[in-house]
């Protein structure tokens, strides 16, 4: 108790002895800082506010320069579902997200463990390769990959036009996830693993019992990022499913929403809001995982 109380007491005394002009300056600085923060916050919120207000307008009003909806038209959110196959797109997105995330976890965890913990020849080289794979733009390899998926038709199955070409590569490991998991595995004290080894665990057993339990936050972060990435992904799904609206994920559907239904800005904004909503809800449910994951990838980079 006394140890914790001492610095607090010291600070209190120090604050009381500050000359009044210094205190006033500090107060003014804090006021200025908070005013700037509030101004910036308003600018960050404004786009969302405008989108939401437009989503409640009638079509006629959305095309005028009025800013406030009158009358408020909640039916827009219902009409979005009747004018476009939103559920179909959502289902496609869920399939992409779910299968990709699952496969990515199953494949990336062992690789990351091998990179972080096991001693083997070429470990450093392999890690560098992961880093390079992470940094190169996806546009470099799309042409041959597209050609490959369009030529490869086992049992007469056509992959181009479906989401499988964007799902399957995840089952064989993903560079970003491997990188993030490796950074976390490096922080696990070697003693835990040695203790398990002394008890006669094989590497696989160590991975499934010890490491995975300790790495739960990192694995949650990887799953979350993978979900977000696939939910937001646009470029590759566009390549493979552009010609086949039946297999469009939400993002492709949303990007075409306006052209499907003329100039209905009010419905477009309602759809935009609906597509943003799951991500926002997820953020509030898993706020800590987000912030931890972001700082984990950043600070150790």
């Amino acid at each position, binding site marked *: 108790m006394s140890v914790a109380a001492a610095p607090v007491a010291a600070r209190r005394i120090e604050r009381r002895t500050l000359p009044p002009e210094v205190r006033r300056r500090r107060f003014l600085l804090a006021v200025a800082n908070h005013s700037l923060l509030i101004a*910036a916050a308003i600018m*960050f919120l404004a786009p969302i506010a405008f989108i939401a207000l437009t989503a409640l307008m009638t079509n006629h009003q959305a095309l005028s320069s009025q*800013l406030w909806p009158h009358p408020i038209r909640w039916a827009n959110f219902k009409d979005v579902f009747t004018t476009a196959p939103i559920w179909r797109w959502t289902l496609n997105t869920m399939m992409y997200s779910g299968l990709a995330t699952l496969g990515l976890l199953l494949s990336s965890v062992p690789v990351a463990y091998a990179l972080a913990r096991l001693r083997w020849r070429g470990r450093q080289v392999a890690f560098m390769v992961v880093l*390079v794979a992470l940094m190169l733009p996806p*546009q470099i390899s799309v042409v*041959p990959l597209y050609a490959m998926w369009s030529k490869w038709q086992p049992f007469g199955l056509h992959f181009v036009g479906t989401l499988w070409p964007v799902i399957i590569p995840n089952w064989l490991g993903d560079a970003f996830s491997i990188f993030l998991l490796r950074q976390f595995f490096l922080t696990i004290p070697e003693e835990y693993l040695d203790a398990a080894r002394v008890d006669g665990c094989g590497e696989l057993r160590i991975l499934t019992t010890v490491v995975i339990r300790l790495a739960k936050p990192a694995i949650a972060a990887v799953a979350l990022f993978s979900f977000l990435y696939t939910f937001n992904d*646009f470029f590759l799904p566009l390549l493979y499913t552009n010609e086949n609206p039946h297999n469009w994920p939400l993002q492709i559907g949303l990007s075409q929403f306006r052209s499907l239904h003329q*100039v209905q800005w009010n419905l477009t904004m309602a759809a935009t809001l609906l597509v943003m909503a799951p991500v926002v809800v997820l953020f509030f449910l898993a706020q800590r995982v987000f912030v931890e994951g972001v700082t984990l990838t950043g600070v150790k980079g």
Partner: protein
Amino acid sequence: MSPWLAGFTIFFAYPIVWSGYLSFTHYNLLSPPKWIGLANYRYLLHSDPQVWPSVRNTLWLIAVLVPLQVLFALGVALMLARARRGVGVFRTIFYLPALAPPVAATLGFVYILNPATGPVNTILGHLGIQGPLWFQSPSWAKPSLVILGLWGIGNTMIIFLAAVLDVPRHLYESAELDGAGPLQRLRWVTIPTISPVILFAVVLGVIQGLQYFTQAYVAANVAAGQADQAGDTVNHLGYPQDSTLFYPVMIYQHGFVYFNMGYASALAMILLAVAFAVVLVIVVNSRRWVHYQGALR
């Protein structure tokens, strides 16, 4: 390791090698690739009227967006680090836009910056300012994309905030004893200490700039559809007047709109060389100006 090695070979190494081969061929996916030597590269460097504009667009975007994003994120992070109340609420407000799906965010901004009746120009009009044409104007389309990019600085801001809060207190105290004012403390304590994180943000920004696609594609498509009212989905890449035709967009156009796969591969090879060089240059030069705490890593 082996499934990943297989995946790496199939989905990374092999495509790059094959892309290199295809870049010397004429290939349209229907008939087998036909060897044409350096013809693709010759056309790319000497005759293609779109190559230099798209390179300029991409360089412009990186040169403007990346420094602004870093400055902006750092400014917000510093303000948040000083704030006494409502830190959690502010942090959430600044972070959330980064999560908005790029397609949704772009759609929203094209509407908000709609020249005739959009909210921004309406408000500017009330203030007596004639707003620009934003996404409809060749000179304002890229700045509009920059504004969109600045809205999404949340991730960078969170990383900066964590780094700023991690700066050891005693460094500030000793600087204060040496008579350093707030600006000097920022210049000589905060920024050097968090420089690895700043480098990380710059590297990430440049890399993302080299693959900038979704926002440009969606903005061009929607803005063009808005202009001709019919909203048909044919080829609006680069609208208006190729001002948003970034290099990756051009690869997409040649590969997947015109199906000139050989030429698209040649374009991709150039991008590969540039991306590789950029990563190398940044990593090598970083040693000169980045201060790593505890020296050895």
